[in-house]
C-alpha cells in the first residue's frame, strides 16, 4: 500500500522541487530558475568569473537591470543621447554592468529602455517572476517576489558569482513561519501598514531563520501589488523570504505579461501553479496571528523598522523598556531622530517626502498618493517632495491616467524610475538632520544619507504629510 505523503507547506514544496542534491548535513544544492542582476552587487562577481575563466551557465535565465545608482533626473537629451552620470563611481558601476552583460550573454534592460526600473518592480511586471520558481538577486528585497508564489530571496555577491557559474546555491532549509492576518482592514489602512504591523509584531530579528507564508483573508483579498509590498518587507523582520500562495488573482496578473508563458505552456503552467498551496494539515514551525481590525495607519519613530507606532500615538519612552540593551538602543534612536519621549507623532514636522522604492512605487501606490494630493498643494515648509515610479512602464501608465499632472500641480517632482531616495546611492538624498516621510523600507541610521532621519509610512500617508508638512493621519483626508 502506498504511504500518504507527509503534508507540506508551500515553501517546502518549492524547495523540494528544486533540490539538485541533498547532502547528509542537511544542506541542499538548490536550482535557481531566475536571477536578477543589478549594478551594485555584480561587478565583483563578474570579475571573479573572468579571473577563473568561468562562463555564465544559464544567461537565458538571467536578467540585468540598473537601478540603485541611476539618477532619477532626465537621462537623455532632446536627441535621445545618453547624458553622462555625474558621480564617477556610479558611472563606473553602471558602465561595468553595460560591459559585463553582453560579455556574458545576459540580457540588459538599460537606463534608456521603457521597461527599465527597480529589479523587484521589473521582475513581476515583466512576468519574469513566476509562481513556484526560485528567484534570487543580490539584494535583500528579493523577498518581494514571494507575492507571486515564487521563492525569492536576497544573496551576497559571492553567491551571485556562484549562481552565475552554476545556476545553483548551497542552502540550508529555513524553518517555516505562518503569518495569518484575518478580518477587515479599517479605513486608511493599506498593505504598507499591514507590513509594518507584521514587522512590529515579529520584531526586526523575529523572522531570522524562517521563510514566512502570509495567510488569511487579508492576503486573499489583497491585490498582487499589495502582496508585493508585504512580501518586500519580510526581510525587515529578518525572514529571508515571504510567500503568498498563488491564486486566480496571481494568474490574472501574470496573463499576457511580456515574459509570461503563452498558449499551451500557459495552461500547463497554471495547472501546476494550482498545486502550489500549503497542504491543509501542513505544520509550520511557528505561527503568528494578527487581527486586521487592530491595525491602524502606522509610522516608524526610530531607526529600526520594528520601531512602529500608530499615527495617532506618541513617541515611546525608552525608560519603559526592561532590557538594558534595548533601552540604550532606543535612547540612541531618539537622540538620532531628534525626538522626545511622549511627543505626539502628528506634531512631527517633515522636510522631505519620498514616494517610491521597491516597497511602494507601483501604480496602485501612485494612485493612492495622488488621491490625497489631488487639488491640494505641498506645504510651504516641505523642501522637496519626490514621486519616483518603480519602472518606466509604471511611469507610462501613471501618465496615461494623468497622475503626473496631479503630482506636478500639487508641487511634487515627477521623476525617472530607480531606487532613488531609499538608499543614498544616487543624487536623491536626505541631508543631515533633515526628516523624511518615506514610503521605503528602512529607517536605519544614515540610510537616506548621512545624518538623515526617516519615518516609514504608506504612500497615502506620505502624500498627506506632504500636504500638511507634518506626519498626518490619512483618515483626516477621507
Amino acid at each position: 500500500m502506498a504511504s500518504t505523503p507527509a503534508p507540506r507547506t508551500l515553501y517546502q514544496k518549492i524547495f523540494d522541487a528544486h533540490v539538485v542534491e541533498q547532502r547528509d548535513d542537511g544542506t541542499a544544492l538548490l536550482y535557481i530558475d531566475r536571477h536578477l542582476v543589478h549594478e551594485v552587487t555584480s561587478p565583483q562577481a563578474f570579475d571573479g568569473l573572468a579571473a577563473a575563466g568561468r562562463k555564465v551557465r544559464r544567461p537565458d535565465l538571467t536578467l540585468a537591470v540598473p537601478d540603485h545608482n541611476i539618477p532619477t533626473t532626465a537621462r537623455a537629451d532632446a536627441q535621445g543621447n545618453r547624458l553622462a552620470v555625474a558621480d564617477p563611481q556610479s558611472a563606473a558601476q553602471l558602465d561595468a554592468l553595460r560591459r559585463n552583460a553582453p560579455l556574458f550573454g545576459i540580457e540588459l534592460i538599460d537606463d534608456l529602455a521603457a521597461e527599465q526600473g527597480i529589479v523587484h518592480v521589473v521582475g513581476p511586471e515583466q512576468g519574469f517572476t513566476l509562481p513556484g520558481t526560485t528567484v534570487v538577486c543580490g539584494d535583500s528585497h528579493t523577498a518581494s517576489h514571494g507575492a507571486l508564489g515564487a521563492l525569492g530571496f536576497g544573496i551576497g555577491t559571492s553567491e551571485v558569482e556562484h549562481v552565475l557559474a552554476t545556476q545553483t546555491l548551497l542552502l540550508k532549509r529555513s524553518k517555516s513561519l505562518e503569518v495569518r492576518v484575518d478580518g477587515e482592514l479599517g479605513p486608511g489602512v493599506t498593505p504598507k501598514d499591514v507590513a509594518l504591523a507584521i514587522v512590529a509584531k515579529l520584531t526586526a530579528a523575529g523572522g531570522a531563520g524562517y521563510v514566512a507564508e502570509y495567510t488569511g483573508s487579508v492576503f486573499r483579498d489583497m491585490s498582487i501589488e499589495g502582496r508585493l509590498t508585504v512580501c518586500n518587507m519580510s526581510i525587515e523582520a529578518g525572514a529571508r523570504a515571504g510567500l503568498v500562495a498563488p491564486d486566480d488573482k496571481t494568474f490574472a496578473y501574470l496573463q499576457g505579461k511580456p515574459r509570461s508563458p503563452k498558449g499551451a505552456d500557459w495552461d500547463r503552467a497554471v495547472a501546476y501553479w494550482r498545486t502550489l498551496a500549503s497542504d491543509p494539515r501542513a505544520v509550520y514551525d511557528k505561527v503568528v496571528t494578527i487581527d486586521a481590525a487592530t491595525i491602524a495607519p502606522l509610522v516608524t519613530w526610530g531607526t529600526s523598522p520594528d520601531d512602529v507606532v500608530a499615527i495617532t500615538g506618541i513617541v515611546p519612552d525608552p525608560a519603559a523598556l526592561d532590557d538594558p540593551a534595548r533601552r540604550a538602543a532606543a535612547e540612541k534612536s531618539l537622540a538620532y531622530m531628534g525626538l522626545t519621549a511622549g511627543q505626539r507623532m502628528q506634531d512631527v514636522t517633515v522636510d522631505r517626502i519620498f514616494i517610491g522604492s521597491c516597497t511602494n512605487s507601483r501604480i496602485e501606490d501612485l494612485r493612492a498618493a495622488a488621491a490625497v494630493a489631488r487639488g491640494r498643494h505641498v506645504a510651504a515648509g516641505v523642501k522637496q517632495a519626490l514621486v519616483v515610479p518603480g519602472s518606466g512602464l509604471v511611469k507610462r501608465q501613471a501618465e496615461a491616467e494623468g497622475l503626473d499632472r496631479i503630482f506636478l500641480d500639487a508641487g511634487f517632482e515627477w521623476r525617472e524610475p530607480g531606487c532613488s531616495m531609499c538608499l543614498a546611492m544616487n543624487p536623491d538624498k536626505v541631508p543631515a538632520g533633515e526628516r523624511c516621510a518615506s514610503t521605503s523600507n528602512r529607517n536605519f541610521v544614515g540610510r537616506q544619507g548621512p545624518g538623515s532621519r526617516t519615518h516609514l509610512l504608506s504612500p497615502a500617508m506620505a502624500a498627506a504629510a506632504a500636504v500638511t508638512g507634518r506626519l498626518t493621519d490619512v483618515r483626516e483626508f477621507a
Partner: protein
Amino acid sequence: MRAIDIIAGKAYPLGRPNIDTDVIIPAHHLKTITREGLGQFAFETLRAEPGNVFDDPAYAGAPILIAGDNYGCGSSREHAAWAMADMGLQAVIAPSFSDIHAGNAFKNGILTVVLPQDQVDRLLAVAKDQPITIDLENQTVTTPYQDRFRFEIDPFRKDCLLRGLDEIGITMAMDDAIATHEAKMHAETPWIEGAARAA
C-alpha cells in the same frame, strides 16, 4: 580562501543588538567595483560616536568582534563582509545573525559564532581587558579564566573554513546532477526556460 583554525586575540566588545549592514558599511561606500579597501570605512557611523570601541587603542587590530543579537540585519550587501575582512576581523560572536550576512561572512572566511546571550555577556566583560580564543576544530570559545563555551556550526561550512575551499569549484564538480535537474525541468516545467526571455 585562507584556511582558519584558531583565532586568538583582542575582541571589540561592541555588544549592541541589531547592527545592520548599513551601519557596518554605509551605502555611499558601495560604489566600488573591487573587494578591497573598504576597511577604513567600516562602522563609520559608530566611529562618529566619542569613546567607540573601534577607535579605542586597547582593541586596535582585534581579530574578533562581540555583538548583540541580529548582527548583520538589513541589506544583503557583501561589502559589509568585505569591509570587516579588510579591517582584519576573522570572527564575530553574537547571540544571533542575519541569515544573509552570516552566509556572506562565511564566504569571505569570517567565522560567525552563535552563543547564548549570557555567554556573550560574559565574553563582553572579559574582552574589556583580556584576549579571547576561538578554536574552530573543537568548536569552543575560551578565555584566560575558566570560561569554555561550546558553539555549533554547520559541518560543511566548518570543513570549508578549515580547509579554505572554493565553494564554486566544489559545485562545478557536480555538473552531472545539475544537468539532470535541467533535463527534468525541460521535460516537466518547460515554461520556466521558455518564458524567461520576452517573445
